[in-house]
């Protein structure tokens, strides 16, 4: 069975409790409908079990199928440089059907980001390589589609699109 490679580290976007007993990692694509469907489930999990769960999001954009997947990933990482990765992450998933370059800039405005800096960071080498490194780590970890979840480093095979399949997996780790 494939394990998370590399393990969660300081380059990862993470939220929830940093010393939580359970680390849940998602490989996602901002334009993938199944990922948008998983998004509120993860939010609910963090609300209900935030003290027990640390959540990490890694980018796995399937660019040939989803033209906006990579620009959206870069937008979220660029927002992260102004401390608002998760706000942008939520906004993109919640408005997935309206994704284009304009909407990404509008999201940045509505999050009160420095839009000039945001636009520059979005196209920067640093942000592009973060997204590529996430993708490569996904391949090495055996990701074969999105969303793919890992729980404490091991691939979660039992996620079936339901909240219960996530929460049960978290409970089993405690």
């Amino acid at each position, binding site marked *: 069975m*494939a394990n998370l*490679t590399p393990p969660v580290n300081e380059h990862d976007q993470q939220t929830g409790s940093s010393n939580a007993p359970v680390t849940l990692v998602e490989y996602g694509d901002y334009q993938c409908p199944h990922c948008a469907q998983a998004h509120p489930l993860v939010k609910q999990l963090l609300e209900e079990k935030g003290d027990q769960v640390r959540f990490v999001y890694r980018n796995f954009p399937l660019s*040939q*199928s989803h033209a906006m997947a990579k620009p959206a990933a870069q937008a979220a990482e660029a927002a992260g440089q102004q401390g608002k990765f998760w706000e942008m992450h939520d906004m993109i998933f919640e408005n997935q059907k309206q994704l284009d370059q304009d909407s990404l800039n509008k999201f940045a405005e509505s999050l009160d980001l420095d839009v000039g800096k945001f636009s520059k960071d979005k196209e920067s080498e640093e942000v592009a390589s973060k997204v590529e490194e996430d993708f490569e780590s996904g*391949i090495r970890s*055996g990701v*074969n589609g999105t969303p793919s979840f890992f729980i404490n480093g091991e691939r979660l095979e039992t996620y079936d699109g339901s909240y219960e399949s996530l929460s049960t997996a978290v409970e089993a780790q405690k």
Partner: protein
Amino acid sequence: MLLEKGTAAPAFELHSAPDQTLKLSDLKGKRVVLVFYPNDWSPVCGDQIALYNEMLSFFQKYDAEIIGISVDSKWSHKAYRENGNIQFPLLADFEPKGKVSKLYGAYNEEQGRSQRALFVLDEKGTIQWSYLSPIGENPGADGILKALEDLDKQANEQE
């Protein structure tokens, strides 16, 4: 039986487009990733082929060409490639049906289609890694990358 490490990869020539064929020997001197998969259009294969389609730069880095093979016709492959913007060749193991898949031990007689099997060939056309995946399971690409990395390591040791 799936052909295993150390076996010389059987030669083949199959249609890669309606007016074009591809011979394994055309790729001599390059590493080759052979992906046998059951069918165009079925959802799991779609994911698998789409995944490899995103990874072409990785395969290039290891000087490897990737090729898909199924029993679908050259016209099905053409439509499927156009539909999914697939950038690597898909070969039609169509007539006689499954002939090449059978040579590699990657044919399911009962269902009349290729198994979901992966092979990594070295520059000399010798199989260096093979893997048979359960039919409903997308095997991902971690095994392929690891096999290519091992080839790089061996090459470095010989230098």
